[in-house]
């Protein structure tokens, strides 16, 4: 029998997930809308003074991005587990870790990448200085995959549970705190004219660590949840 290579399988899985996602465009935009709305709340709740907003902008952008990816995590594997696709993936000869990594990649393209692209607009609304925008985008591009990967591992752990929602945030938040710290600090440093390279390197290191370890954690978690 002709067994397709791992790369082919990976891209097929990504393509399938993207196709499925684009059939429900409404749901697709939810995390992005959430991201924008949460950032809108801060000027309303605090004080729309440009000075104040500029001071809190890095924190607000990062917390909003974190919450948006948290919101998206819930639906990452739910549907596939419910309709049995996940069992087929687990039974297939291809490694489950790779398939779940493909699913997370698709998930990032749908929910993480839009956040990165939208961040200049949100930053502008919060009077984030222009010189901090590229750094923020790079940092978000490095950080959102980590958020999605860790969220994926935790979603795989809790996917079999009926009351997963609040629990999922409780599991994800303490683990991703370093990402928030490094990301917001990178933006902060760029704002004050310092070189943010150190923070970005640390984020990149964390991303590589997450990329190499979490797929296996995800697969192990999924196998536990499935039986």
């Amino acid at each position, binding site marked *: 029998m002709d067994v397709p290579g791992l790369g082919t399988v990976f891209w097929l899985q990504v393509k399938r997930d993207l196709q499925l996602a684009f059939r429900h465009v409404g749901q697709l935009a939810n995390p992005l809308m959430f991201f924008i709305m949460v950032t809108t709340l801060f000027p309303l709740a605090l004080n729309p003074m440009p000075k104040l907003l500029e001071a809190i902008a890095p924190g607000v952008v990062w917390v909003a991005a974190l919450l948006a990816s948290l919101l998206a995590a819930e639906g990452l594997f739910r549907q596939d587990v419910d309709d049995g696709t996940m069992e087929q993936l687990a039974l297939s000869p291809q490694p489950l870790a790779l398939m779940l990594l493909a699913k997370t990649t698709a998930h990032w393209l749908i929910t993480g990448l839009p956040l990165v692209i939208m961040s200049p607009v949100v930053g502008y609304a919060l009077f984030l200085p222009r010189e901090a925008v590229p750094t923020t985008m790079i940092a978000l591009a490095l950080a959102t995959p980590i958020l999605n990967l860790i969220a994926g591992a935790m979603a795989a752990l809790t996917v079999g549970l009926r009351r997963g929602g609040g629990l999922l945030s*409780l599991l994800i938040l*303490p683990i991703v*705190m*370093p990402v928030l*710290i490094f990301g917001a600090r990178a933006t902060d440093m760029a704002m004050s004219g310092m070189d943010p390279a150190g923070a970005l390197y640390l984020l990149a290191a964390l991303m590589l660590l997450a990329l190499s370890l979490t797929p296996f954690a995800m697969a192990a*978690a999924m196998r536990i949840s499935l039986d």
Partner: protein
Amino acid sequence: MWTWFHKLGSPPHFYRISAWLTPWFAWAALVLIVIGAYGGLYIAPADYQQLDGFRIIYVHVPSASLSLFIYVNMAIAAAVGLIWRIKLAHAVAAACAPIGASFTFLALATGSIWAKPMWGTWWVWDARLTSELVLLFLYFGYMALRAAIDDDNRADRASALLAIIGVVNVPIIKYSVEWWNTLHQPATISKLGKPSMDFDMLIWLLVMLAGFMCFFAAVLLTRVRAEVLVRSRGQKWLKQALQEN
């Protein structure tokens, strides 16, 4: 060595051994803590700067070190349970969590009580305080996950995986928080970083630490015994063991 390992993993054997071990640890804990508390509160000289205020460290430092020690213990037990499929190891991990969370809370509480007169505030966003708080959240997450899964076997394995993910993250969290703090805050508060202690003060701290360790062992054994009782309910060896008493 391996037969010993497997023997320890069998509930009946553990149930017998722990019944014998628990009082030893409990009495050792009581004696050591009484000696340590007496030494720390009366014999040790007062600090030249903080006077008697420093004496809370005799509770604070042992609980802080135990909070981390127990988390690592829990993750090791969880990993043993996951790899060798030893149910007893899962029971140990499950029993560790509430004890560890209590010690973490105790460390935070005693720290706040000490900080109020010394720093003039209950809470500061200091690196150590923050990482201790995150540790508390990690314990909460572990316990919440375990509580949310009804099936014992699945709860064991899922929470074991969570503990392992958590323990990989503990150093990352610790150093990220330290880095965040050194950048963020002026050095006004971290003046008391780690004073090189006088031997007269340190000796009682070590006694207290040993006492806390024994206390942990005694409580852990008791909790694991309770877990074993619940998990082996209806099994023959348990009925026999209970009838012998």
